């Protein structure tokens, strides 16, 4: 459950955030939306896939953290287990709300990451936003701008016919099988066929860098499979011990 509240000093002067718990809302999430500005950092840990939002059908970029709904292989024994935390997690439990057309910082007062006695304070003793809160505000800003950048990148990739659906059939070490469907990736041969003028324009706009980052991130899929296999191994030894 969530309970949405807009943040202000008068009511929340003592509120603190336990940063090591802010991923708590992502424990069951296998796809984590990303914005283009974090593709580079995210690609060092996750495959970045292109998926349609169920709600709007629009293409979004997401870090793939598991092979199906409910599975996040980067949360281990309740703790975040990757070198990079996507902005969507870093911002937790805050988000941007709309108050009569003005953007305001809101938060989910039911979040497990909130506390009144431990963690990072949100306000200084002189009633100013703390460094932590300022960082959160920057992240929220980056996410808001990133939404537009995401849309533009997706429509550019679509217009250039660079997207192609992909599916993978995986057999894990315990012989269980899974097929991943409904995601899209970049079409290597279509990228190779782009004409010089388009390549140059993509390079100048920065999109080409993002394209290569997306391509490279696909090499994280074997790592993700290995991660799942390790988890299955742990589970197996756990049962055998019991």
């Amino acid at each position: 459950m969530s309970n949405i509240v807009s943040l202000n000093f008068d009511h929340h002067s003592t509120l603190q955030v336990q940063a090591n718990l802010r991923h708590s809302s992502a424990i069951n999430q296998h796809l984590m939306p990303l914005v283009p500005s974090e593709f580079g950092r995210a690609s060092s840990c996750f495959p970045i896939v292109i998926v349609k939002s169920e709600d709007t059908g629009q293409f979004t970029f997401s870090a793939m953290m598991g092979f199906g709904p409910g599975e996040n292989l980067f949360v281990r024994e309740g703790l975040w287990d990757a070198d990079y935390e996507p902005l969507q997690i870093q911002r937790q439990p805050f988000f941007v709300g709309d108050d009569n057309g003005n953007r305001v910082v809101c938060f989910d007062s039911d979040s497990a990451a909130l506390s009144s006695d431990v963690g990072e304070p949100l306000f200084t003793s002189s009633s100013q936003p703390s460094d932590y809160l300022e960082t959160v505000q920057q992240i929220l800003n980056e996410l808001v701008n990133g939404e537009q950048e995401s849309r533009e990148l997706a429509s550019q990739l679509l217009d250039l016919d660079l997207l192609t659906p992909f599916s993978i059939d995986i057999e894990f070490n315990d012989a269980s099988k899974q097929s991943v469907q409904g995601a899209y990736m970049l079409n290597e041969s279509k990228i190779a066929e782009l004409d010089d003028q388009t390549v140059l324009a993509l390079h100048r706009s920065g999109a080409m860098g993002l394209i290569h980052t997306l391509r490279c991130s696909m090499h994280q899929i074997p790592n993700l499979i290995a991660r799942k296999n390790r988890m299955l191994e742990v589970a197996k030894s756990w049962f055998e011990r019991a």
Partner: protein
Amino acid sequence: MKPIKGGAFGCRPFVRCITFNSGVRIVNTIDSIVVVGGGTAGWLTAGRLAVEQRSRHPGRPVDVTLVESPNVPIVGVGEGTWPTMRATLKRLEISETEFIRECDATFKQGAKFAKWSKNCDDDFYYHPLMIPQGFPNTDLATHWLTNGGDDSFSNAVCFQEQLCENGVAPKTISTPEYTSVANYAYHLDAGKFAQYLQKHCTESLGVTHLLADVAAVKNSDDGDIHALVTAQAGEVMGDLFVDCTGFSALLIGQHYAVPFRDCSSVLQIDRALATHVAYPADDSPIACHTISTGQSAGWVWDIGLRHRRGVGYVYSSEHISDDQAEHELRAYIGGDKIISEPRRIDIKSGHREHFWYRNCVAVGLSAGFLEPLEASAIVLVELSANMIAEQLPTTRSTMDIVAKRFNSTFLYRWQRIIDFLKLHYLLSKRDEPFWRSMTDCNSIPESLAEQLELWRYQVPCDHDFDSNNEVFPAASYQYVLYGMGFNIDAQNHRRSPMTASHAAQEYLRNAQITQQALSKLPSHRELINKIHDYGMQTI
């Protein structure tokens, strides 16, 4: 219809001379097509021809010109399509999102026939757009007929009736354009559709648009149409003229006097009363199927678009007065708000004896008209445009051969449609004079009577039809026959090899698909709104 000879040299404007070693020979090539009439038929045909010619002759495209009177409004009541429209729009390089937004279009998953068998509120059946489960490899129909069951035929063998009854869309917002979860066609605003096609054809497909009234038609010596004489744009010459002038049939009827084959003894409806009805609220559900409700002397169509419904009564003027018909129409509409006062349209059921004569071919209402019971009008336009586009000869000398084939193909299609429409009435138990008159055995075409005789002992299957130009598949006949309660001779039917357990499996499969579809698909209104807000993806 003799092919013209070389003697036309010098008389016609689009003559090309090709020199062979043996001498000089004149070939009259087809370089320009003139479509007359700017309704749905005209623009669909012009667009289809332009696309085909462009892909066939990239270097030397054939000119396609559409001449439209600025003074004649389009009839514009054809608002139901077939699933073929998806392929047609795609071929015209139209974005499905844009089409739905611009034409107020919605999805159609079939037709619901209410009060056709009996005049009571719980009487209805569906003709969905998907074939029965396992069809044609398994024959559930025979099993259903001989073993009974509480479920209606279409519910037992197809999941689409439940989607319609629950107002559920045939796809989701993340299903790509022109792709479906459940097969679908469209409902659309015919006026907006013609305008949209006009814009697309002229801006993207290179069709020339001339606003001009045709004052006279000029023949060449051989009897072909040489040019249209227009009040505003002078003479408009062409090698092929497509008559899309609606009921007025300017070229095929008025100019060439090709006879009209009246079929009002089979299909007696001769009048329509059309109106638009408002939804009670902005978020009122939109029906995802055409609703056709039997009345005392005909039936009422009800088509849900995004912002309004198109509702109309088609009736037989011999069996009801116009006033009484309007009264019945208003009773059907009930408390809902009528946006436009009912407009009366006289209709004449029938078609031309041939459609392609010399260098003139009729497409749309000029070719013929039948009551809109199965949305056959627009699909005939699509089929005609396809055949003209695909078989358009490069020279005049072969045009008569193509014309002959076109005529026999479409005569066959009109016949099959007439039979299929008539079939809807035959099994009715309604007792008003109109319905009795429609079931009179003297009014039944022989071809249909023969089929019915066969179907007393076997369910319709694709072998019953001898042409590959069939318009309705055997499955459609099954839905109508068994929806209307037709039965099979339980002792003497051609036995189905299907075992009870195999049939049970197929019924179960259908029930499972039904549940899955109902749980995953959004409401029709919700999907239409999302298409307006976000659009669909192309992949």
